[in-house]
């Protein structure tokens, strides 16, 4: 007897509404962007098919290329520092101490707070004349800094804000990982008389590596996408000193209404995000291999 095709599972109907919404607000925009990137179109004018000319123009656009460089510099720092600090924080929050729940809640406040609101306060703190940060510097005998008003420092200042804001997320992911680790290797290390550093270096860290790399992927995606804090604090300035791809994109799209060109930027940006994510996932697979 021939087997009839498998009946459709009734559970399909639970998914249909969500699939429709996801197609409408997520998949449709992707397709539309890809399509629009092939057109020369500014809102209010007639769209002209332009082939790949948007992309070839981008390849020679210095401002865009610089924005890629700014994004990569920002991302590298905004991933590396929270990974180190977040892992250290997870080691601390894994211990027992009084008021741990409350203090952990306080520690994650920066990532839950409204980004625009905290960015406004950072603007005031960075202020070269009345800002509290320059006062704190003066306490330790360092002269006033220009902070975000200095073209050389603006990206570093934005990284500082990002570290402050997102180290908690790394901490949470690594802490979740630590809770899932088996106890045996630690007991063995204790029996062998390993020092604390040895236990961390040869037992904890290797087992945590997959979780740290997941945190790295998440952090990297978020860092590449950072918009609110940069837009509020520097708007890409001074000049274009801290203009990331996202800020450049925003200006092209919603100040100049260059829909075709900005769609091309989105496509390049997306390729960059996916490529970097795949790289980190690949690293993660390798780290598993060596377990």
């Amino acid at each position, binding site marked *: 007897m021939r087997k009839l095709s498998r009946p459709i599972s009734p559970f399909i109907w639970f998914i249909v509404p*969500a699939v429709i919404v996801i197609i409408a607000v997520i998949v449709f925009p992707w397709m539309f962007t890809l399509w629009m990137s092939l057109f020369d179109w500014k809102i209010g004018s007639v769209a002209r098919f332009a082939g790949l000319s948007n992309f070839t123009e981008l390849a020679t656009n210095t401002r865009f290329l610089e924005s890629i460089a700014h994004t990569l510099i920002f991302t590298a720092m905004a991933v590396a520092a929270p990974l180190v600090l977040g892992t250290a924080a997870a080691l601390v929050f894994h211990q027992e101490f009084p008021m741990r729940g409350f203090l952990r809640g306080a520690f994650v406040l920066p990532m839950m707070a409204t980004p625009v609101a905290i960015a406004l306060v950072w603007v005031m703190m960075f202020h070269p004349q009345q800002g509290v940060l320059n006062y704190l510097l003066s306490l330790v005998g360092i002269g006033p800094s220009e902070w975000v008003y200095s073209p050389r420092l603006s990206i570093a200042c934005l990284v500082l804000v990002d570290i402050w804001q997102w180290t908690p997320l790394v901490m949470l992911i690594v802490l979740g990982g630590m809770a899932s680790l088996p106890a045996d290797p630690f007991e063995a290390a204790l029996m062998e008389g390993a020092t604390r550093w040895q236990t961390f270096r040869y037992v904890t860290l290797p087992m945590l590596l997959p979780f740290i790399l997941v945190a790295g992927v*998440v952090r990297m995606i978020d860092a590449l996408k950072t918009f609110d804090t940069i837009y509020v604090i520097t708007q890409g300035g001074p000049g274009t000193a801290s203009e990331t791809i996202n800020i450049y994109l925003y200006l092209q799209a919603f100040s100049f209404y260059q829909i075709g060109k900005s769609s091309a930027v989105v496509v390049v940006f997306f390729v960059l995000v996916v490529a970097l994510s795949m790289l980190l996932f690949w690293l993660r697979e390798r780290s598993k291999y060596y377990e």
Partner: protein
Amino acid sequence: MKKTLDKLLLGVCVILLVSPAISFFLWMLSLAFKNEVDNLAFPPVFIPSPPTFANFIKVFDSGPFFKYLLNSIVVSGLATGIALLIGVPAGYGIARLKAKKLLMVIMIARMTPAISFLIPLFTLFQALGLTGTLAPVIITHLVITVPITVYIVSGYFETLPNELEEAAVVDGCSPWQRFRHIALPLARPGITVAAILAFIFSWNNFIFGAVLAGRETRTLPVAIYNVLTFEQIAWGPLAAAALLVTLPVLLLTLVIQKEIVGGLTAGGVKGG
């Protein structure tokens, strides 16, 4: 002796870790409750003496704060409500069908910068003549709320034991009845966490409103940003406004930190 030393060291570490967050928010409080002279003083005044509510009064007087508050509540409330309505059944369906591919789409959506959704949707809303109403803002906020909800809820349904539902099948329950009467009540904690996180991330969102909202339809983050740029308002009222916007989120995080931490760790999710 060594034990006391260990405890002391741990205490120092904990203080070092939480002090950047705590001192930042204390400084925000200080700015919001000081008068303008103290706010611009150098060296800075740390403790408002006496604390003043003038900054808050100024916020309420200088613009339609309550209108923006209402906008924020309507946008985040509806975006979260719709996300639950379609996302909870979808999460259940994904868990039962083991349809991991759909979660992949959601992961990629998370990787995509918000502006890439905005360009097409902005163009579409203009063509439809919807700009100037709250509808475009609510619809784009679904980009944040639906993925979070589906992700967290499907993960939660997967952890539920299957035995009860199997017993229900034997008793002749339809898939809908299984969902409605057995799985749904059991999943309430997971759904609550998803709803809270979806609401918070929608509440915090700036870029969708910044692009799509008109003067009348601004959400709170957009409104306080506009205060900064256009009206050259003093620090005190600005800090007070920022505090008012983010205070509900901060309090919620502290009160139910355990649930929020659990939900965030589940997928490392974050909106927009």
